[in-house]
């Protein structure tokens, strides 16, 4: 697939570190020394326990989350912030509710193809909405669409930017299993059609195997790292039945699950050890407590976005403290 040597390392993560402060203000590495090379056109999926830092890695590649140390290079250029060359499909569809599906996709297209004529842009938007099967309802508002359909728009919006890397952050995590299967099929079709380089975070083992060329397994945080990488032997273009019938599928699946179980045990053991040491009031109890604290911080930072509140008579001080537009 790759002719040039730089295509072998189209996306490169070098000694990537992310630190969050623990409750005492000391930095703790949530993700530590992650190194990964991704070929052009390759699809990578990252799995791991929730809170292990897999989403942190993805948001760092997206540029939405500042890097503590190390670097990320995409197509020979080190990334410094977010941009449409690294389009993201978020876990929740994140559509703008005051715009139709068409307008949501057009918002990005307008910015990425500034020299295209109106007609050309219209064709691009319509093309991608048709690809995800929304040709009929492209002028509906998000609230008129089911969750699955909204996420289709989210995917179309990202792919229409023709990004260098397509980033998917647990894109089907909020969908029921039938819809999820439908969307996985659509995603596979899109990846085959566009030959896109992609990175997908998921905690669904089957999904990881189905979509990816390589599955990256991350160890449990803090100091999360890449544990193992497996290549999938399934041919492209792919479809679900062929993958499920492949003789290597179940052994690979077993291997992934084994890894996750081992990591789970390791984490439980560490937590139990910390607890027993704390109860025994050993000297190192404080340190272990910090570690547990960090895990919570990391999880909170990775998963939970602060909920905006909308009371009427709030004072400006409160407004100030609730401000999250700190880009």
């Amino acid at each position, binding site marked *: 697939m790759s002719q040039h040597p730089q295509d072998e390392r189209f996306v490169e993560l070098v000694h990537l570190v992310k630190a969050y402060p623990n409750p005492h203000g000391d930095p703790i590495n949530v993700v530590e020394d992650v190194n990964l090379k991704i070929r052009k056109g390759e699809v990578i999926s990252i799995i791991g326990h929730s809170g292990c830092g897999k989403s942190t890695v993805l948001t760092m590649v997206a540029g939405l989350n500042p890097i503590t140390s190390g670097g990320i290079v995409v197509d020979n250029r080190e990334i410094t912030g977010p941009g449409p060359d690294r389009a993201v499909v978020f876990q929740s569809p994140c559509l703008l509710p005051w715009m139709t599906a068409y307008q949501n996709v057009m*918002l990005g297209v307008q910015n990425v193809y500034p020299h295209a004529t109106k007609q050309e842009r219209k064709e691009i938007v319509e093309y991608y909405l048709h690809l995800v099967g929304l040709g009929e309802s492209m002028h509906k508002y998000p609230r008129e669409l089911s969750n699955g359909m909204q996420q289709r728009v989210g995917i179309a919006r990202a792919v229409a930017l023709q990004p260098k890397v397509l980033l998917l952050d647990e894109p089907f995590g909020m969908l029921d299993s039938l819809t999820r299967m439908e969307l996985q099929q659509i995603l596979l079709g899109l990846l085959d059609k566009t030959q896109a380089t992609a990175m997908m975070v998921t905690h669904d083992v089957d999904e990881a195997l189905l979509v990816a060329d390589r599955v990256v397994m991350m160890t449990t945080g803090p100091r999360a790292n890449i544990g193992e990488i497996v290549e999938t032997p399934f041919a492209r273009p792919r479809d679900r039945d062929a993958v499920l019938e492949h003789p290597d599928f179940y052994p690979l699946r077993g291997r992934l699950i084994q890894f996750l179980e081992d990591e789970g045990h390791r984490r439980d053991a560490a937590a139990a050890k910390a607890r027993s040491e704390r109860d025994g009031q050993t000297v190192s109890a404080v340190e272990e407590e910090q570690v547990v604290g960090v895990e919570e911080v990391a999880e909170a930072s990775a998963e939970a976005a602060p909920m905006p509140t909308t009371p009427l008579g709030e004072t400006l001080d409160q407004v100030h403290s609730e401000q999250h*537009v700190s880009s």
Partner: protein
Amino acid sequence: MKEIKYFLLKLIDVTALNFLEPVVRLCYGEEPKVQLEKIGLYILVPMVAFVAFLGLWWGVADNIMTKSGKVPTPPVVWHEASSMWSQHLAAREQRADFYKKQEVRVAELEQKLAQLETPQFEQRLEKTKADLEKLEAENSPRAKSKRAVYESMASQVSNLEAQIENAKTAQYAGAPTYIDQIILSLKTVFFGFAIATAIALPIGILCGISRVFMAAMTPLISLFKPVSPIVWLPICGIIVGAYINADNSSLPPAFISSAITVALCSLWPTLVNTALGVASIDKDHINVARVLRLGFWSRMFKIIIPSSLPLIFTGLRISLGVGWMVLIAAELLATNPGLGKFVWDAFQNGSSQTFAQMFVAVFTVGIIGLLLDRIMVIFQRAVSFDNAQAMAI
């Protein structure tokens, strides 16, 4: 039939008159028991409460004696309200009469002017003028009498023209009726509300997007927000008086200072709610904007403003309510023609009739405040993307 029902239900939803919904549904025989229950709750109970209030008022009012007579009872107030209405109608008729007469008069004068300004008359005027110049050049004694002739001829025309002008511009000078005063009050409140919005929206948005600006504004806002309209009014009056003269301005200074007072008191809810709305934009939407690398204006008009519109309108709604409340006080003190001044004049008069008029004013202020609030609710619903479903379908 179904279409009419859906249309009515949608209309009720859009206008936020939800208490009518069970009535419509009952008319179409939809679950009569449930609808009757709702009618009882949303229409019957409030009506009973209101009637009870009227009874209480009546009972209490009859027993309070003041120097302006007894406190007016509901029927007295009602009677006063209807007589104020008929006074208004009578005044309107008078005014219409006045302008009708004026039209007739203008037409008469114009006809006269047309009769006068014939070519013959022009010729005679020209000739007299030429004669006059000739006599003056000769220094003849007849020049003086000739000049008098010429001037009287010329003044005939200018006199008529001046009369027409006068007749045209004459304004009906009757006292403003109660309805006129309500309209004046509404003008003042909307003028003030417009000023407040023009100040509060940009500052609120800046507060929401910039922490620095918010930090700079917080002490000012906290300091001035609690200041009462009674304090602003004299200050505004003096400053406005320094720049605007009562005689040569199209807007009277009392009007402007009332409006500015309204603005100063009503801009805070809009400002605070706008700042809150902008500051609490969904983080995901901000991320979308960052990934798409939207420019400042595009971010502003496609993401920040639409997403904070519901809260902005909540603020505007509170602001308009505050403004209307403040206005009455401001007008009362500034003696700006309007409802406030009406109440003040009634108080000064002190008769039992004007006492009843003050009660009419209370209900007028209440009903208009209610209507303004309803209008804002309708706007608020129209821009709120979460429950605007009914509008879209």
